[in-house]
């Protein structure tokens, strides 16, 4: 029995995992590819492999190199920080299991965003967009405003699905209309407008959020390729959100033009 385990251990130890990683030393320098071959361990994910490279930064040719940089935080696919392009598809590296990937595993940064170093990208654009669309429920006043209107429980459950968005940027990377020739804020942000406009208190400012997505880089930049809904790791119905906001902006457009005596309703 112990002999068997020893053989198995040896087999596991001799097994390796091949990686091809697109690296970039500074934000302005040219990217280049570097291969790595690291010992296999059961249940590895891409992050544990990157940690192994960091522990022993030697490439497949046996040359000593700099450790590969990447971003990570929660390690359970709720923060979005570790998103990168794995075997051609943007996704989170924490839930990318080595056993499920074809080798060599190709890692690239999400080039829709400015690359900081190696696999680290700057998603500031999305956070700025969240501020632009006012992705919050304003409750501050000069006096106690009291309780807001109640949110129906069924609506809360539905809105919870939209609130799973972690601003990871995968849908922007998947979208053909988010690139350096356009300034489309991206599918995730349109869905956030829907989320906050559905909230009974958030809805008190819904015209402001709609005005934002009816301006520069807004909802009409969407070309309906519907890649976002395929790519979203959280299964958020992004295309339904976009179509819903299309309808809301259509109504708002007519209100704005023909005039109504209510700003919000």
């Amino acid at each position, binding site marked *: 029995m112990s002999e068997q385990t020893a053989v198995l251990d040896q087999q596991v130890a001799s097994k390796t995992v091949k990686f091809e990683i697109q690296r970039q030393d500074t934000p302005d320098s040219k990217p280049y590819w570097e291969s790595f071959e690291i010992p296999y361990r059961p249940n590895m994910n891409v992050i544990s492999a990157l940690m192994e490279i960091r522990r022993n930064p030697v490439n497949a040719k046996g040359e000593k190199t700099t450790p590969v940089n990447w971003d990570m935080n929660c390690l359970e696919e709720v923060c979005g920080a570790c998103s990168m392009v794995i075997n*051609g*598809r943007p996704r989170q590296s924490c839930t990318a299991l080595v056993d499920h990937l074809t080798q060599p595993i190709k890692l690239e940064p999400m080039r829709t965003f400015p690359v900081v170093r190696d696999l680290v990208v700057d998603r500031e654009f999305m956070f700025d967009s969240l501020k632009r669309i006012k992705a919050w429920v304003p409750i501050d006043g000069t006096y106690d405003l009291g309780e807001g209107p109640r949110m129906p429980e069924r609506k809360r459950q539905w809105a919870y699905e939209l609130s799973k968005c972690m601003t990871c940027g995968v849908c922007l990377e*998947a979208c*053909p*209309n988010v*690139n350096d*020739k*356009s*300034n489309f804020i991206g599918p995730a942000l349109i869905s956030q407008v829907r989320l906050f406009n559905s909230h009974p208190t958030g809805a008190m400012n819904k015209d402001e959020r709609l005005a934002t997505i*009816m*301006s*520069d*880089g*807004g*909802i*009409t*930049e969407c*070309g*309906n*390729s*519907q*890649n976002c809904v*395929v*790519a979203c790791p959280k299964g958020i*119905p992004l*295309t*339904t959100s*976009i*179509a*819903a*906001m*299309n*309808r*809301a*902006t*259509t*109504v708002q*457009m007519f209100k704005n033009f023909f005039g109504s005596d209510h700003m919000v309703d």
Partner: protein
Amino acid sequence: MSRESDFYLRRLHSLLGVIPVGLFVAQHLVINHFATRGEEAFNTASNFMGNLPFVLFLEWIIIYLPLMFHGFYGVYIAFTAKNNVQRYGTFRNWMFLLQRVTGVFLVIFIAWHVYETRIQKALGAEVNFNMMEEILSNPFMLAFYIAGVLAATFHLANGLWSFAVTWGIAQSPRSQTIVTYITIVAFLVLSVIGVQALLAFVV
């Protein structure tokens, strides 16, 4: 490149693609179909359309201006996309690409088609069955015209789908799927009408 007015320009682009350009394309293909009833029927129909009252006004307001805006703004839209069907080979992503490819092709095709017919008419030629028969006797031109008609019917049918989504008519995935099926039928019907008419000039 975007501006504050982009929202209204894009919505106008979407609207003009259906009304009046889309309606005109459908009408044009139906009138062409008179060719299947013979030379005389086609010439009667063509004369009727070509001699409508206020024909120049109608042409500019219903056809040229909306078509030029839709076409040129569409080319701008097409070239701002970074297509990625290798990464996501889904039906909708292919439709997204094909909509742009057919759109750019149609700008070329329609420019040529207008030069060959309407501008020649303005220069004194007569637009009739013989003219089209002569043009389409060249197998290359026949293929070019068939490609043009199919590109137009595809672009119109798929454009109807995105019109429904863009204006918020079809929201749920189910309704979007049903609209897809409806537009596939529209594509097939218009294509048959259009290509039958073209072949009537050859056979």
